[in-house]
């Protein structure tokens, strides 16, 4: 099998071209020598089966950014038959250097001049045959977004594969040498083959920027955009999630339960309340992830994400983060899981880790359900709104506090230099492919972990089998009892502790768990809770719920995105610790003041 790598600078539409060439067959894979995931797909090139790999965007081979290291390590460890060098034609005057570097390295290559549609609109005309002659490599004009030129690219790539053998990693290592001549050669090629207007007539981008980057209006516009995106995700996400839940419940009652009816009760419970519910927990996230990435693709590919980063960077820089981190933090208020996956736009690992450290503190919609219930049970309506407001403020406060505390450990040395690309409309195909890839990625990486966790909590709350479920005689109850010395100073009693153990799986089930624990539902559960707890205890419980581990799916995502169990553990331990300290200070403080 042949190996073909795609190489290009950031913002060249490389991934769009990759998706265009690979279709839905792409999947994430691990490679020797590097620690990040790369997308790969098997495609047919003439008579060859070739493995196409989408390398991260780099500016040159000699840079020191993490992506540049990844590309170098990849090329030094894996033999490559050919490279597709993808350039953004509208910026050919500075991108050609990368293609020249590839040629110096002696890598067989096809030069792909992408985004010709934009280049034509900008009045740039390129003579591909002249570039091909100068560069001594086949040169194809392509618009990956609309698919123009892709079939020509495939046949040219196939011919090029016939002509050359692979380059071994050892040869490449020796050739990654100086590139002094490149500058002057680039000038002469451009002079001969490219005509470029002095200034791009990009009036539209300039006008939009004047509004969205306006010193006063920019921020309201940004918050408005975020609000609309949120509305979009949840207007469409909620019915979809409900639909999935209904479908699973229906299948359970009509199909799975009758099928398993002959089994002994413990196995019946394990299969249904353990494994089947675990699968349901995973499935409930899929619609939200797809919708989130539909929106995310629009925000990212349109060019708005870098504008939002521009607006928020002054605030975030003080916390060792960058402007994009704020966008992800806000997205986390919908659901932490896709927000964590979204941090992949950050290329510096430390910056990404620090951002992933704070996202779990975003008050997600699942936690909101718990707070709405408890606030309604314990507080008058006017006070309940205030309580929610305080919880939202606390969410930001603990996130920022965490960033301040950890920024020393997770220091990013990446210079903050981001391109502000012209605004573009992503195509439906781009949007849909992204949603599809992210959802399958989540299912592949996180589902086992989540199902195992749900089963574990089921065992804790249902065994030993001769006692009532979720009672104090179960394992969970025993753990609650053992934790009493730790949790009673923050006002959390044995019953609430069991609810917190359930909450470890997903916050959505906390209210359901309380119903099982107290043996009551709805209004009577509220009345009972109001009787057994005072407002200080309830507030302490809500603060703890806000800050400690959001849910198993978040932990699974933390682990799969950071590729480090240690990091996921650190995040969980830190959030538990912080939750306890905050609740302790609140609870004891309130009691001290006589409440």
């Amino acid at each position, binding site marked *: 099998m042949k190996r073909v790598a795609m190489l290009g600078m950031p913002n060249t539409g490389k991934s769009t071209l990759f998706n265009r060439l690979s279709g839905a067959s792409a999947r994430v894979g691990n490679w020797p020598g590097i620690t990040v995931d790369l997308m790969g797909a098997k495609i047919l090139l003439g008579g060859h089966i070739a493995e196409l790999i989408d390398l991260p965007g780099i500016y040159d081979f000699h840079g020191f*950014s993490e992506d540049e290291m990844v590309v170098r390590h990849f090329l030094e460890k894996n033999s490559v038959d050919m490279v597709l060098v993808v350039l953004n034609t509208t910026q050919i005057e*500075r991108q050609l250097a990368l293609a020249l570097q590839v040629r110096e390295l002696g890598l067989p290559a096809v030069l792909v001049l992408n985004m010709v549609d934009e280049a034509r609109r900008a009045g740039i005309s390129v003579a591909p045959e002249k570039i091909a002659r100068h560069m001594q490599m086949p040169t194809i004009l392509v618009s990956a977004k609309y698919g123009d030129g892709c079939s020509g690219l495939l046949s040219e790539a196939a011919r090029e594969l016939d002509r050359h053998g692979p380059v071994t990693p050892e040869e490449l290592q020796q050739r990654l040498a100086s590139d002094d001549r490149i500058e002057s050669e680039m000038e002469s090629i451009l002079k001969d083959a490219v005509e470029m207007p002095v200034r791009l007539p990009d009036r539209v981008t300039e006008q939009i920027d004047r509004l969205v980057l306006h010193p006063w209006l920019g921020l309201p516009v940004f918050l408005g955009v975020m609000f609309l995106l949120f509305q979009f995700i949840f207007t469409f996400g909620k019915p979809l999630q409900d639909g999935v839940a209904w479908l699973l419940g229906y299948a359970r009652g009509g199909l799975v339960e009758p099928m398993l009816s002959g089994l002994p009760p413990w196995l019946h419970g394990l299969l249904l309340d353990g494994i089947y519910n675990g699968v349901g927990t995973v499935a409930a996230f899929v619609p939200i992830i797809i919708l989130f990435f539909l929106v995310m693709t629009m925000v990212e590919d349109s060019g708005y994400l870098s504008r939002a980063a*521009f607006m928020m960077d002054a605030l975030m820089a003080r916390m060792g983060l960058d402007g994009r981190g704020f966008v992800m933090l806000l997205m986390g208020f919908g659901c932490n899981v896709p927000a964590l996956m979204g941090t992949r736009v950050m290329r510096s690992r430390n910056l990404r880790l620090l951002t992933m450290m704070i996202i779990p503190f975003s008050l997600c919609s699942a936690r909101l359900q718990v707070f709405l219930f408890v606030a309604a049970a314990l507080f008058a309506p006017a006070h309940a709104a205030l309580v929610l407001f305080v919880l939202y403020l606390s969410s930001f406060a603990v996130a920022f506090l965490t960033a301040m505390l950890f920024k020393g450990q997770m220091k990013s040395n990446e210079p903050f230099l981001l391109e502000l690309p012209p605004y573009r409309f992503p195509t439906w195909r781009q949007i849909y492919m992204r949603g599809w890839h992210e959802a399958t990625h989540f299912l592949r990486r996180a589902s086992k972990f989540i199902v195992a966790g749900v089963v574990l909590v089921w065992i804790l709350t249902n065994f030993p089998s001769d006692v009532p479920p979720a009672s104090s005689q179960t394992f969970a109850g025993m753990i609650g009892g053992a934790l009493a010395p730790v949790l009673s100073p923050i006002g959390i009693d044995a019953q609430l502790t069991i609810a917190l153990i359930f909450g470890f799986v997903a916050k959505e089930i906390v209210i359901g768990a309380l119903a099982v624990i107290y043996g009551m539902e709805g209004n009577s559960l509220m009345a009972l809770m109001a009787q057994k707890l005072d407002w200080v205890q309830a507030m302490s419980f809500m603060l703890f719920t806000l800050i400690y581990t959001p849910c198993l799916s978040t932990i699974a995502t933390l682990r799969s995105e950071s590729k480090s169990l240690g990091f996921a553990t650190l995040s969980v331990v830190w959030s538990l610790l912080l939750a306890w300290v905050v609740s302790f200070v609140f609870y004891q403080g309130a009691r001290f003041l006589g409440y």
Partner: protein
Amino acid sequence: MPSSKLSSLQPGQSALIRAIHAEEAVHQRLLALGFRVGKQVELIRRARFAGPVHVRIGTTDVMMRPAEAQRIEIGEIMMGSRR
């Protein structure tokens, strides 16, 4: 004439780059984005609260923090950009 830095430009002003004083990593990135001695660079806008600056070099728009803009030394300041 005293030398000034890219960070001292006002929105709408442009100047030629005279020198880039940056460690290798930043220097490489700036080069790849098109920042070279002798090229014209225009400051489009600044973010509030000492946030990043938005600059244009050739056909490329870039944002950078003031710390990075400090490293780019510029020559005589011109109003607007060359047409």
